[in-house]
């Protein structure tokens, strides 16, 4: 009887654990999983915040963080904190990343246009608490300044985001 209960418990617990690991992996690769910490109010037309990225080495993780910084401004918006109010996403249209998949694939390709809107405020490799060694690779945080207004204007000019005065 006790063996049957143990087997049943293992059968019930195992998929749950496996799913958690799987979910975690999906989250790593998901474009929605942006970890952002606002640090203050940026100068005219810019946003400053701390963003985390993942990668096999520190360089790759930094690039991933830069990509996440721009993607957050476009799809998710920035949370409030550090004296700054929340910032809405540039693309307010639901599922914009799927509707304009071809555009964003090119925009976020390696060395793509997204880099044009990033001004990294700390150039050296992240260290200390901003550099976490994981089982496979690194998780790092960088402080970035995103040229938010320039990015918005580019997306508006390309017909991806709607202009405030469109239709008038």
């Amino acid at each position, binding site marked *: 009887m006790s063996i049957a209960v143990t087997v049943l418990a293992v059968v019930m617990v195992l998929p749950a654990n496996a799913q958690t690991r799987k979910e975690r992996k999906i989250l790593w690769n998901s474009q929605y999983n942006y970890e952002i910490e606002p640090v203050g109010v940026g100068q005219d037309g810019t946003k400053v915040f701390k963003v985390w990225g993942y990668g096999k080495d520190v360089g790759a993780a930094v690039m991933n963080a830069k990509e996440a910084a721009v993607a957050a401004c476009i799809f998710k918006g920035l949370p409030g904190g550090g004296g700054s109010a929340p910032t809405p996403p540039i693309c*307010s249209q639901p599922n914009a990343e799927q509707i304009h998949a071809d555009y964003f694939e090119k925009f976020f390709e390696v060395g793509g246009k997204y880099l044009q809107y990033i001004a990294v405020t700390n150039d050296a490799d992240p260290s200390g608490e901003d550099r976490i060694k994981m089982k496979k690779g690194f998780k790092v945080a960088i402080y970035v300044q995103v040229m938010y207004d320039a990015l918005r204007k580019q997306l508006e000019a390309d017909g991806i985001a*709607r*202009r405030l005065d469109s239709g008038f």
Partner: protein
Amino acid sequence: MMVNMKRLLLTFSLLAFAILAFGQAKKPIIMVVPSDQYCISRGYKMEFNNQGLKQVLPDYKTALQTDPDLRLVVTKMGQIMADRGFPLKDLEQELKNLEQERAESSMLTSSSSGSEMAESPIDALKRVAKADIIMDLDFEVKRQGPQKYIVFNLKGLDAYTAKQVSGVAGAGSPSTSASPELLLEEAVLSHMDNFNAGLMRHFEDMFAKGREVKVQIKVWANWGENLESEFGSDGKELSSIIEDWFADNCVEGRFNLSDATENFMKFEQVRIPMMRTDDKGRQRAVDTRSFVSDLRKYLNGMGIPSKLYMRGLGEAWLILGEK
């Protein structure tokens, strides 16, 4: 060479057709106005004795002439809005223009007969600073020990429906070293994206469901008929005829008759189309005046003359009985 010329001509004619065929909707005028609370609490006010009742009104001119913080915030907001394609109407300049206009109107006479310009009391009353969307602004530099912080409150109000279409409010982070001017600039930079997102939602709603406006139907005292009088072959009450017209002509029949008597009807949340095709087949922007003008023509066809009185982009009155 000929083929190229033909292509060029075709492109130009298509472009001209597009410009003629697809007009632009009426763009709302936006203006920053300091809130009554801001003006009155700082002493920028005018006090009147209205039949024994003390009335306090904000004095915008004094506020704008003497408050450097207010000017800084208004300028910063104006810069951001102009960048988003909505240059703001400047309240200070508008007040100066109105003063100048008032002076010129009273002095101007015709060169041949010396006649003055026609101006009714209502024309003079209409000479005030107006906007379709008011950015109602209020902020305060607060202190907590050695630290200073800004409390910022900005409301986007539709001047006609009195609805808040966008709004942001909040306190900035306290600082001991930053000057109040810097904190104010930070507050504007921090909140404006969110404010504009609210404005964008309002415009998207407007393009999807039509512009929301207010219409009032009134009756001249000497008409001899009222809104309960029966018209037409089936003897329908005039108020029902008007209500049916709104149901037929509003976007998706959306309107709300919020109050009515035999002498007036108050329609709110009336959704009018942004564009329509005119007699020449052109797309033209619709405002409340042109929308209610169609009702005027319809009632005229039933032998009911009326006067159309415009109160801006989003409100009009139709006064029945005579012009």
